[in-house]
């Protein structure tokens, strides 16, 4: 028996772990600060959270070119990790800015809110940064548990509690599937490490082994739940609708990206050799996800539900990229995730501004006449909608072009045709938002806008990126490609 060896860490490793350390410390600091008295309406939590996120991002950014594998591959620092760490920190920072005033307005300004936000971010980073199924599972649970609480954070509201309960029950179920899948994979291959799993599978392709097949399928169920792929999407509309709007934005971008990060690492690193086996399955799930998401979104009158179904559809587009597979598919997925996060956060950010005090004005009819009374806000929303619909010159168009192009390259032309036809269906409900804003008169009391400087900064930042990546996507494209090459 070997004596326990503390892992030997060099300076680079500490910087690489900086994000995890900073987020853990910031989270605890936020909880401790709750013991100190604060005046009502203080922004202490938001400021601490922002500083923590900045520290986390800077620490990882400092060693962005390094490639390290720590704790036997439990934590891997590579281009992929850096890309997602920065993405998650940015998503969380935007969410903090959007929440800054929103939580005060809706009376949920407790220190736990930001602590949970950081905890979820930490879980997302672990999911992306791990090359071991056990740590991926730990990260997923860390993220999910924090999100369950955040979804139910408006305790006074029944729909918020209902959403949290639904999300929790189905999520716990999915976690069980995932864990069972991991166990079966471990049984089939003798390891939970993705790299060693790939080596094992290359030596002895165990396709006939039902344990491996079942394990893979169960893993897919678990991830499919987190990214809201059909038929594991049932929780999405309820959770999105019930959650505080800022949390909805955060989880629609962050949780989906984290789920895809883990999925990508698994399919590229561990199952890359078996591409021909899982590609048809993923293609079918992609077709179902796009179609069900878009068609159901057509029927929604609540913006949060509509965007929930739209986020399901976007999971479908992302699955097209994953199905294309390989480095091309991976970099297209990364590109699309960044674009999707920005435009979706932007759209939810606009929704979070609507309404006074605790009221929530997120019905499609609430937007009526917004184009006349708040032209700037309406113009921003229009651009986010056009981007989600994939209309140039916005980032969403570039994302779709890139995703569909790698799928065409992989020979999946029928899948691409389904995808582009879906985007025609989708444009209908995105256009309806502009119809409401510009072409309809408000019925009843017109909606108030709760202007707040941090939220405006967040809106401007997301808007600028949505336009910039639509016009000049070169940098992000290169970044996505470089990050995915880090996997190999």
């Amino acid at each position: 028996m070997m004596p326990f060896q503390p892992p030997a860490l060099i300076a680079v490793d500490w910087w690489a772990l900086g994000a995890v350390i900073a987020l853990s410390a910031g989270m605890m600091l936020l909880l401790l600060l709750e013991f100190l008295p604060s005046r009502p309406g203080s922004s202490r939590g938001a400021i601490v959270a922002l500083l923590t996120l900045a520290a986390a991002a800077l620490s990882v950014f400092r060693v962005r070119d390094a490639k390290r594998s720590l704790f036997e591959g439990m934590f891997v620092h590579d281009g992929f990790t850096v890309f997602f760490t920065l993405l998650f920190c940015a998503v969380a920072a935007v969410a903090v800015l959007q929440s800054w005033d929103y939580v005060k307005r809706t009376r949920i300004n407790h220190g736990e809110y930001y602590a949970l936000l950081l905890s979820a971010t930490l879980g997302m980073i672990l999911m992306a940064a791990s090359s071991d199924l056990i740590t991926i599972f730990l990260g997923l649970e860390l993220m999910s548990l924090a999100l369950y609480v955040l979804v139910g954070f408006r305790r006074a509201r029944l729909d918020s509690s209902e959403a949290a309960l639904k999300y929790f029950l189905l999520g716990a179920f999915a976690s069980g599937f995932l864990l069972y899948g991991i166990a079966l994979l471990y049984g089939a291959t003798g390891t939970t490490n993705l790299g060693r799993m790939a080596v094992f599978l290359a030596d002895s392709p165990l396709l006939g082994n039902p344990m491996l097949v079942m394990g893979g399928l169960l893993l897919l169920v678990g991830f499919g739940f987190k990214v809201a792929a059909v038929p594991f999407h049932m929780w999405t509309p309820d959770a999105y609708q019930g959650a505080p709007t800022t949390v909805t934005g955060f989880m629609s971008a962050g949780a989906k990206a984290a789920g895809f990060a883990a999925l990508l690492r698994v399919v590229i690193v561990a199952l890359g050799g078996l591409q021909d086996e899982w590609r048809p399955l993923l293609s079918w799930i992609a077709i179902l996800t796009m179609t069900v998401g878009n068609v159901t979104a057509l029927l929604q009158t609540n913006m949060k539900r509509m965007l929930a179904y739209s986020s399901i559809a976007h999971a479908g587009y992302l699955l097209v990229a994953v199905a294309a597979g390989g480095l091309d598919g991976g970099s297209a997925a990364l590109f699309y995730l960044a674009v999707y996060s920005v435009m979706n956060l932007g759209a939810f950010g606009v929704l979070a501004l609507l309404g006074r005090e605790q009221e929530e004005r997120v019905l499609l009819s609430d937007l009526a006449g917004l184009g006349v009374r708040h032209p700037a806000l309406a113009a921003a929303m229009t651009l986010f909608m056009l981007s989600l619909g994939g209309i140039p010159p916005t980032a969403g168009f570039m994302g779709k072009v890139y995703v569909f192009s790698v799928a065409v390259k992989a020979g999946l032309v029928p899948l691409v045709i389904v995808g582009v036809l879906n985007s025609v269906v989708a444009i209908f409900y995105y256009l309806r938002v502009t119809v409401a804003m510009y072409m309809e008169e408000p019925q009843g009391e017109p909606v108030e806008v709760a202007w707040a400087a941090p939220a405006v900064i967040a809106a401007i930042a997301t808007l600028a990126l949505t336009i910039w990546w639509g016009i000049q996507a070169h940098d992000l494209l290169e970044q996505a490609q470089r990050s995915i090459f880090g996997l190999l």
Partner: protein
Amino acid sequence: MHDFPWLSWLVFFPLLSAALIAVLPGASGRAIRWLATAASVAELAFSLPLWWRYQPAQPGWQFAEQKPWLPGLGASYHLGADGVAVLLALLTTVLTPIVIVSAWSAVEKREREFYALLLALEAAMLGTFFSLDLLLFYVFWEAMLIPMYLLIGVWGGPRRVYAAIKFFLYTMAGSVLMLVAILWLYFHNRALTGVPTFALDAFYALPLTAAEQTWLFLAFAFAFAIKVPMFPFHTWLPDAHVEAPTAGSVILAAVLLKMGTFGYLRFAMPLFPSASAHFTPWIVGLALVGILYGALVAMVQPDLKKLVAYSSVSHLGFCMLGLYALNAQGMAGGMMTMLSHGVSTGALFLLVGVLYERRHTRMIADFGGLWKPMPVYASVFLVVMLSSIGLPGTNGFVGEFLVLLGAFRSNPLWAIIAATGVILSAVYMLWMFQRVFFGPVTHAENEKLSDLSRRERLVFAPLILLIFWMGVYPQPILDRAQPTLDRTVALCKARIQMSARMAPAEENPR
């Protein structure tokens, strides 16, 4: 001045003006109107060098500029013009100021957004004509939808939302398949040559088998057929035209529909000539049906604007017939019909708009005997109507004559059928004119109608000039278009031979 990025300036100047108008704080409606007019007139002035400095005899793209855009994908910001693009761009820049001035009194709400969108639309249209990179082309092509959609949806008639969404969905449904085809071409080219590029020139040199061409052609042709619109894809057009504000209708008819025929000429025909030839009977058949159907439906319309809208379907059928006659006369005729339809139908929509502004109705039955209160208006209407029918001496005649000539050379039967369309167009136009302008004034409201104001005369004067100039002395226009059209025909023939050489190779299993 030789290196000045002339085309970029033409594309981005209206966009910058639009942005300025959109954000200018505290400007009154009057200031906005003047600013928009000044910007569009300046744009027209900037575009005139295209006419003087374009060298028709010189092959290749002129005024070209190229910069890397997405080097990772191989897409580049590549603009350039040939004779066809120059003429269509000039049509755009000539009509935009006319439309803007015509809207001065018609648009009462949210002028700032209205003029900003019109100028943004101009930028997108010019970008579409000048793009030599297929991805860039697609960006402009789709971006064009947004301002038009908003123009119809916000400033349109009672059913504007329905019409706007229908317009957007139809056009987009057509074009997404074109995007797939573009991506396929891109990877096919990359597999053959190893160079990632979306450049049109590279695709012009790309060998494609007949089977490949068929699918790609259908994807492109579908997108353009909806835009033209060819029968039976035309159903969005009457709705969009009727509901759109006058300015929107004019731009839609005069320029946006030309995007479809331009697309055939620039992309679908030369890129996939074998498939194009294979489908010629179908396309010509649909064009002929469109000519007759459009004319017959126009005849029974009670609504003036709908009548003009259906006459567009008929005229665009002539354009397609001319292009698909695939000879010098037919192509030139198609090109001339595109331009003269832009001028004449644009003017007709403006004229209908003038009436609508005064009476808030467009029903033919609500008028009658208008010659008496509005003699100037009636004379202008007469000239425009005759040019739309194709009376010799007006612009419509040149185009239609050349189309018929070209069609006759390809297949006399086509020309015979199409010629009935000319007769029908005289029937529906003259009948409409008679009911609106002749006879006694049947409605008391019409007796006090004011004639054209000075501003309105200013709007129609350049159009009347264009009608006669293009009808009497079209040679300068034809001189600019013909070499480009000849080169397109030559390119199509060369590519058909290239595919034919590939045919034996196709039979061997790979």
